[in-house]
């Protein structure tokens, strides 16, 4: 039982990492908090579903097209809406939140509710880890998240666009003097965040069904993990996901499933009390921002 709990806690943590890494990356690079993140996740899932069921594309193609489409929506969102209110936190928050709300509720209005809205698993098989059954999809999630985090790390550290990301993240004004196009980088950052949401949806959704309320759940999880880990810190996301993932799974097993949400809430409040900027937060409280 303990081994099973640990295995599923790891999987749960990895799912949290997948759900929140895009949100955190966008914030880390351009300082934009994309509250439409959960909506983009669900958009990608429904888009794959429609391409698969109504257009009849092969599964991998449908998934790929959806990811590209979601990334494009992220880019358009920045170009046509966020760019106009850039730098005003209030407006950015409300605009992205409004977009997310409109997307999610539109799907609900169109009647996309029910168990038939689901995506097939990639490989219908399961394995034994010790004495624990784990299905192939969950292993795929773990594998793809390891690959994804690795690729992101390489991308940010070794490509020119990645280096530009880091430049902008560290000091936007200095980066501007070196001829970096801040708007272009911000577009990419929102777009990349959206693509990561779509990738997460592609691998995670086959575990269950697609539902609008999941859009809000993904946003809540992404926010919770980012608050605990520290906004804009990828290391923080990973650590916070592990903390929350393990805490949730262990309370689920040993205390009762209805306590998991309380544990997450308590974790957030506790971290905020002890270290408000999160475990690995780059945002200093007040000092050094003079």
């Amino acid at each position: 039982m303990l081994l099973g709990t640990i295995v599923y806690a790891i999987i749960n943590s990895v799912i949290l990492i997948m759900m929140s890494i895009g949100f955190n990356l966008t914030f880390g690079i351009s300082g934009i908090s994309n509250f439409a993140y959960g909506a983009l996740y669900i958009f990608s899932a429904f888009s794959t579903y429609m391409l698969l069921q109504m257009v009849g594309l092969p599964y991998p193609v449908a998934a790929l097209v959806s990811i590209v489409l979601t990334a494009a929506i992220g880019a358009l969102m920045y170009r046509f809406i966020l760019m106009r209110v850039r730098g005003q936190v209030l407006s950015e928050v409300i605009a992205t939140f409004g977009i997310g709300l409109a997307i999610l509720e539109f799907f609900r209005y169109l009647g996309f509710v029910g168990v038939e809205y689901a995506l097939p698993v990639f490989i219908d098989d399961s394995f034994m880890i010790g004495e624990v059954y784990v299905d192939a999809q969950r292993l795929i999630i773990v594998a793809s998240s390891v690959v994804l985090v690795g690729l992101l790390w390489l991308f940010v550290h070794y490509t020119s666009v990645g280096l530009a990301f880091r430049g902008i993240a560290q000091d936007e004004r200095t980066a501007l003097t070196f001829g970096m196009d801040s708007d272009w980088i911000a577009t990419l950052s929102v777009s990349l965040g959206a693509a990561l949401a779509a990738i997460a949806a592609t691998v995670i959704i086959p575990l269950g069904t697609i539902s609008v309320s999941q859009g809000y759940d993904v946003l809540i999880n992404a926010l919770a993990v980012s608050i605990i880990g520290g906004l804009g810190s990828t290391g923080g996301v990973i650590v916070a996901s592990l903390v929350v993932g393990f805490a949730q799974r262990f309370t689920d097993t040993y205390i009762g499933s209805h306590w998991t949400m309380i544990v997450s809430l308590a974790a957030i409040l506790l971290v905020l009390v002890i270290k408000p900027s999160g475990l690995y937060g780059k945002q200093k409280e007040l000092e050094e921002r003079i």
Partner: protein
Amino acid sequence: MSETPLLEVKGLTKSFGGVQAVNGISFTLNKGDLLGIIGPNGSGKTTTVNLISGFVKATSGRVIFKGRDITNMPPYKIVRLGIARTFQMVKPFYQLPAFKNMIIPLYSPRVKALAGGKYGDRDAVALDLLEEVGFERDNQVAYKAASVLPQGYLKRLELAKAISLQPDIMILDELFSGLSLAEVASIVPIIEKLLLEGKTIIMIEHRLKELFRIASRVIVLNFGEKIADGVAKEVMESDEVKKAYLGSEE
């Protein structure tokens, strides 16, 4: 030397990441002094001031004010004890008239305490203080929105905000930067008057000529370390200071 100093800084150190912005600076300040802090850009002058006023937390070292350890106190408490400062980058509330900008410092608990528990008419006090720093009452400058005022007036506003707190020590961070000679010349008498009133002042300054006219003592920083301390003329004769300002000779 029997007199205890008003402010005592002991081995103040701050490192940002691996960089030592301020490294073991010590000095004392007696009542009525005007201490100039000079040094090349990036020598740690502003960080030193930020450490004293609590806006930046020290890595090590101590700041003692009136015999009380104020190291790493939050800024608002330090202000209440009697150290007020100005900022190099003035950021007034642009949409408000100049005299309304004075309301916030005049709302300070320190002002209330010094006035014996009541605030009085803040608008009137604000206008008086502004007149003191050169907002001519006749042409109604004090009623103009801060957004339309020239830099000279904004710097005076910043100075007036510090004066309004009736501090024991005033820290003026590059008050003269960005001002014309005439503007500087009109502010110098205000500072001289403050000294006559018994205020203690620390000035960070690049305008050495004007500073040396009024400073009783100068310390020179370079790469976060104090390299000279003394009367203005003597300090500038020192080889090390010349080297810091003119670049190394290797």
